[in-house]
Structure formats: C-alpha cells, structure tokens
C-alpha cells in the first residue's frame, strides 16, 4: 500500500507517475472501445435475425476469444513490432464476442408488434428507429459494452509488453526488482478502475432501462 501513499508517485511532470499512467490506460481502453463498437454494432445488426450467419460469426469470434492474450500479443509482436496496433488489436478482438452477441440479441428481442404500432401511429422509419427500436435495444447493448469495458481494462495491463504505457507498467516494470508494493498498487488501481467503470455503466444501463429489469447476456 506504501506505493499508493507516496506523494512523489503523483508528480504530474513524471510520465511514469500514477495519474499519467492512469490516463494512458484510459486512452488505451477508450480507443479500443471506440474501434470495437464501430466494428461490432453494424456486424451485430447484420447478423441479427439471420441464424446461420449469426452462428458463423459467433463461432469465429468465440475461437478468437479463446486465443490467450499473452500468446496473441507475442505473435503480433513478431509481425507489427512494438506498436500501438500490437496492443490494440488483441483488445479489440476480445470485445467482439460479447458486443456482437449482445447487439444481435437486443435486435432480436424487439417485439415486431411494437415496430408495427409505431408505423401505424404514423411514425416515419427514422422515428421508429430512434423512438421505438433504439430505446428497446440499448439496455442490452450497454450490458455488453459494460462487460467488454471491464474485460478490456484488465487485459490492457498487457499493453506494456507491446511497449505501450498504462497501469500495467507498474506491474511488469517492478516484477524484475521484486518491488511488490508497486506491483500490488498496479493491481489495485486496475481493479478499482474496472469496478468503477462497471458501476458507472450499470448506472447508465439502469437509467436507459427506466427501471425495467434488464436482460443482460454474455
């Protein structure tokens, strides 16, 4: 715990200080989630209501998810070297299974009758999408985003191996010198970040749900 209490570990001018590593970690997670959503949302909408395509896409995503993070980063290092891409690619791959599955489930779960009612009330397709479909699908999609974010926060520690800084630095840099205070500090900060992100997204999910019970898959 000592490491977390030393004031000099919070010196903003030092790029390896806790606040800077924290921001670096958030940056990695932010970029990953942005790219992940850009890929997974259209893909999820595409495979919804197409069971064969869904099974194919999910099987591929599942197999990719199975490849251990350390092994994937190690293999990528031999291809893309020590770069941001090497850190981000595995993180993006690991979010896909949860995000695609939840998006497809969310779309499948919308009662077609509600869409009909929207049309019958004179809504145009845009209004049906924004006022009927999205509010229905969003809580389940956010449930997926929540799980994906927490997972990404944890795995992003391995970005250190690809030469990208983040809270993982505290862990990996200090293992060699057996400075367990710093290693444990890294672990605590990452776990804390994961728990806070989880609770924040849970709050978003609950607000979007307007008090209804949420169906969270994955």
């Amino acid at each position, binding site marked *: 715990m000592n490491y977390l209490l030393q004031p000099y570990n919070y010196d903003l001018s030092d790029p390896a200080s806790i606040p800077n590593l924290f921001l670096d970690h958030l940056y990695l997670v932010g970029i990953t989630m942005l790219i992940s959503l850009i890929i997974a949302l259209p893909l999820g909408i595409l495979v919804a209501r197409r069971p064969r395509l869904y099974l194919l896409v999910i099987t591929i995503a599942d197999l990719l998810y199975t490849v251990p993070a*350390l092994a*994937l980063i190690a293999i990528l290092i031999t291809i893309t070297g020590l770069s941001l891409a090497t850190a981000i690619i595995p993180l993006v791959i690991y979010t896909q299974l949860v995000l695609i599955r939840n998006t497809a489930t969310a779309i499948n779960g919308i009662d077609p009758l509600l869409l009909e009612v929207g049309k019958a009330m004179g809504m145009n397709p845009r209004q049906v999408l924004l006022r009927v479909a999205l509010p229905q699908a969003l809580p389940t999609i956010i449930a997926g985003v929540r799980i994906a974010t927490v*997972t990404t926060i*944890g795995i992003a520690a391995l970005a250190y*191996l690809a030469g990208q800084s983040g809270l993982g630095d505290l862990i990996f840099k200090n293992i060699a010198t057996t400075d367990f205070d710093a290693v444990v500090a890294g*672990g605590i900060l990452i776990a804390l970040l994961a728990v806070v992100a989880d609770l924040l997204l849970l709050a978003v999910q609950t607000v979007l749900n307007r008090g209804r019970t949420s169906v969270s*898959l994955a």
Partner: protein
Amino acid sequence: MNALLDFIADPHNNFMGQSITYLRICAISIMLAIVIGVVLAVAVSRSPVLSFIAVNLSGLLRAIPVIAFLVAVVPFLGIGAPPATVALVILGIPPILLNTYTGIRGIDPATIDAAKGMGMTYWQILTRIQAPLILPIVAAGVRTSAVQIVATATLAAITGAGGYGAYIFDGFNTFNKTAILAGAIPVAVLALIIEVAMGWLERALTPIGIRREAVQSQMVVKQGEVAKA
C-alpha cells in the same frame, strides 16, 4: 518456420520438459478447481446468504488482473509452481461454481416431483434426473475455466514456474522472435483444442430431450467467461 522447428528440436531448449511442466500445472489446477468449485456450489446452494456471498465474490474476482493476483501470492507461497497453481485454481473456481450453482437452482421442482410420482428412489432421482440436467451446465463452466487456466498458465513463468510462458518472456527479453513463437503458438493451439473438445463434450453430455433449450441457456451460462489473462 524452420527456425521454429530447430528451436523445438534443440535439446538445449528442453521443449518436451517445458511442455510437461506446463501441462502438469494446467491439469492439476483444472482438477482442483473442478473439485473445489463443485463442492462449494453444492455446499452453498441451500443457503441464500452463503450463495449470495459466493456468487458476488466470484464476480468480483473477475475484476482483479490475473497477473497482479499471481504476483500478490508470491510473498506467501514463494516462487515456482505452487503459487502459480494456487492462483490458477482460485481463478478457475468462479465459472465452475457459478455454473454448478445455476444448474442446481435451475432444475424445475416439478421435474423432481414428477420423478417422485413415478416412484423413483432418491438415488435414481440423483443419477437419472439431476445429474443429466446439471452435467452439461457444469461442463460449460469447466470449459470456461480450462481455457482460462491454459491461457493464464503462461503468466506463471513470471513466478518461475516454467512452461511455455518461459519461452515467451525469455523471447521478449532477448528479442528472440523464434522463442516467442515457440511459446505462443503451442499455448494458442492448446487453448483452441480445449475449447473445441469441451464444446463437443458439453453437447454430448446434454440429454437429447433438452438439446434445443440448452443452446439457448448456454448463452446465459457462459457469463463466467469474462476474466482473461
């Protein structure tokens, strides 16, 4: 590719020895995780308070980065295989515990009543009704755990336990791509084999009558799969 084969064949690298070390750590961890996970789940399933604690504690474990956990146990258990095994067992328990618990709670009481009504004895109910209904769900949990343990065991090299992770980390330190690949590829292949084989086992264990439903519930049951190395 040739460099990789040379690396594996080189007796100096002791590829067989490292493979056996790796497989042994994984196998022991999975066995212990199954035994502890199932026993704990059965033990807590009757008490709402205990099961609430167990389920939420399992969920919380997912948030802790595996590597921090691994290093945190070193001061207590020293270096080598024991701390790695303990960390892997603890990480492997939650999916098995959650799934076994879900399986036990998920059995429709009416099904048990029907079996009693048909004159089945306690033993018959246990072996012919409960076990077949729970097994595929437990197998799904074991699958998640096993894949996770195989993936995480690479990090065990950090505590000096050896195995494929030793090649990966040595490779990182000496910029030796061949060593990195010699560690990474077997691990990736092993994880994929376990995933596919356990998926097959899971389907084989599912009673034919409920196969269609099982596909649906499997999506929910795989909740425990989130924690990753």
